[in-house]
């Protein structure tokens, strides 16, 4: 961006300032929480920091503390993994099904994506009530799973449809011409090309589930997922232990993303290295 005499216009500086303020607004609070989680033992929820310590982290994991953070973390991770796999499988299958228009395809599409506009808390309420009426006990891995899928499936399907849209259908015909069975077409042509999209769906599925609150609230049953546990504790806990929880949760999500990115990177590198070795 430059004016005729080569210098940046004033709008550049104005917009840059706006961007800086935006970043501070988004990440500032998180950073404060992160900082305050290392509050000293005698410190309170606000500044000043008495000293730096890991006291509140230790509190988190000690048996004497209220709530069941480690348990909630384990449940959230497990549930998120299951949601990730189920979302991925269903989305890919949907993508394959929607390659050619079929009777009712538009209806199915709208029904699936409609759950995006319904408020999550109402979806949770509905499923919770239905479970009660039918006599099924609410549990995070059954009713909770179902409720979360209403949230992740539309995202997953939309991503896959977008990726399939750029997929050149002729490649399947070419593969068939060269002798590929439908399964071979799937593993040798569709999956390798759609791979980045599939990673995106998996990531979405995991993180949407891990952070999910509204739908899980009334369908998780007796044992809480992490967001529910944090919410429950927030009403009781008045110490920086809360900040430790927040930091820990953020770090977990960050780790998940870093691990997946690293996996993709290594996989792609291996694929290219495999090529060279065929010389």
């Amino acid at each position, binding site marked *: 961006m430059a004016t005729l005499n080569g210098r940046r216009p004033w709008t550049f500086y104005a917009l840059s300032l706006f961007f800086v303020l935006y970043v501070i607004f988004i990440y500032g609070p998180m950073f404060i929480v992160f900082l305050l989680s290392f509050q000293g033992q005698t410190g309170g929820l606000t500044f000043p920091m008495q000293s730096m310590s890991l006291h509140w982290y230790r509190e988190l994991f000690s048996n004497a503390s209220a709530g069941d953070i480690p348990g909630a973390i384990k449940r959230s991770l497990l549930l998120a993994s299951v949601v990730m796999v189920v979302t991925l499988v269903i989305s890919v299958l949907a993508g394959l099904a929607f390659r050619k228009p079929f009777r009712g395809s538009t209806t199915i599409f709208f029904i699936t994506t409609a759950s995006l506009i319904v408020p999550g808390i109402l979806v949770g309420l509905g499923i919770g009530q239905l479970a009660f009426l039918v006599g099924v006990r609410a549990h995070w891995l059954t009713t909770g799973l179902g409720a979360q899928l209403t949230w992740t499936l539309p995202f997953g399907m939309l991503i896959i449809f977008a990726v399939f849209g750029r997929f*050149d259908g*002729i*490649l399947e*015909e*070419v*593969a*068939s*011409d*060269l*002798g*590929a*069975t439908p399964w*071979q077409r799937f593993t*040798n*042509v569709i999956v*390798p*090309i759609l791979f980045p999209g599939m990673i995106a769906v998996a990531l979405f599925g995991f993180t949407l589930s891990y952070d999910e609150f509204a739908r899980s609230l009334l369908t998780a049953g007796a044992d809480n997922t992490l967001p529910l546990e944090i919410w429950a504790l927030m009403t009781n806990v008045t110490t920086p232990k809360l900040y430790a929880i927040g930091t820990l949760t953020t770090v977990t999500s960050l780790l998940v993303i870093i691990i997946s990115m690293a996996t993709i990177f290594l996989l792609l590198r291996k694929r290219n290295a495999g*090529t*060279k070795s*065929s*010389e």
Partner: protein
Amino acid sequence: MEILNTTKADDSGEIRFEQVSKTFGDVVAVEPMDLVIPSGCYCCLLGPSGCGKSTLLRMLAGHEFATTGEIKIGGSVVNNLSPQMRGTAMMFQSYGLFPHLTVRQNVAFSEKMQGVPKAERLANAGEMVDRVHLTEFADRYPKELSGGQQQRVALARALITQPKVLLLDEPLSALDEHLRLKMRSELREIHREFGITFVHVTHTQLEALGVADLVVVMDHGRIVQSGMPSELYSRPKNAYVAEFVGGHVLFHGQVTAEEGSNLIVKLPSGEELLVPKNNNYSAQKASDHVSFSVRRDRISLASDESIADKRTVKVKVEMTEYQGIYVKVQGYTLSGSEFAAYINDYDLPERTIKVGEIIPFVWDQTANHLLEPNS
């Protein structure tokens, strides 16, 4: 003159269509038709968009089921066989190279589907890559290659399956002019080298004339005429073929008399031309309306002496176009029909033809070719 200069000794690549048709719902894409393509022949299916040539090719490839009829390759019926099992391989118009595989891996794909071990199939692929002169690109990805190179990869990938028939769907349409001419001769060379039957779909008549042993002209799902390029060019069956193949002038007139083996045809503006009778087409007697064609390159400017010859046709010139090896003179006859002639530029030494001039043209009347009505 030998009919086909690359006929295989055996019939393994012979293609027969027997009463084959294709209907999509209510739309008839290909009407029931019969066609024999000899083994080892280079056959071009020629016609405008929508004439059914691509549908015919896809039925041959196994990517489309025939609604009726039998398709035979090498004597065996292949209607229900997969592309791989029927011995065909297709080179698609957009090539369809797998973007996530290198050139070598693309070519090795068919053997991978058959379960050939990695080392062996990559070695085989390497050999084929050498044969199409792409050795130094073997480990590149398709997006790094030029259009002509991509086409050679697509060819190598298809040929490695050792097909009896190679199918090409408008292979040269995506290339620029210069590359198109180069790839045309490459295709002929590959055909000569591998000796298998080629079926090549195109809408470009010069391309078909240039590469094919057998040209099949199609229109609205039917075969209008099939034969050697020279036959189609010198003796088009009807006005459609004459116009599509190009290079002809069409005349319409009425038969006034017969003179031995010729008809005397009178044009609306009064000229009387001599048209040899056509043994295949019987409706040729006095007062019939007929059409006939003349090759544009057989027509000459009438010199002062030959103006006295009543077989000249006067033309009002609309345009001249210099094309190097000839000058195209275009206009309308006094009957109002379109006219064009290819005149050698050394027949016009000091003479320049002006737009609007009315000039007489003359030619050897044996060049007149009677046309059947368009069916």
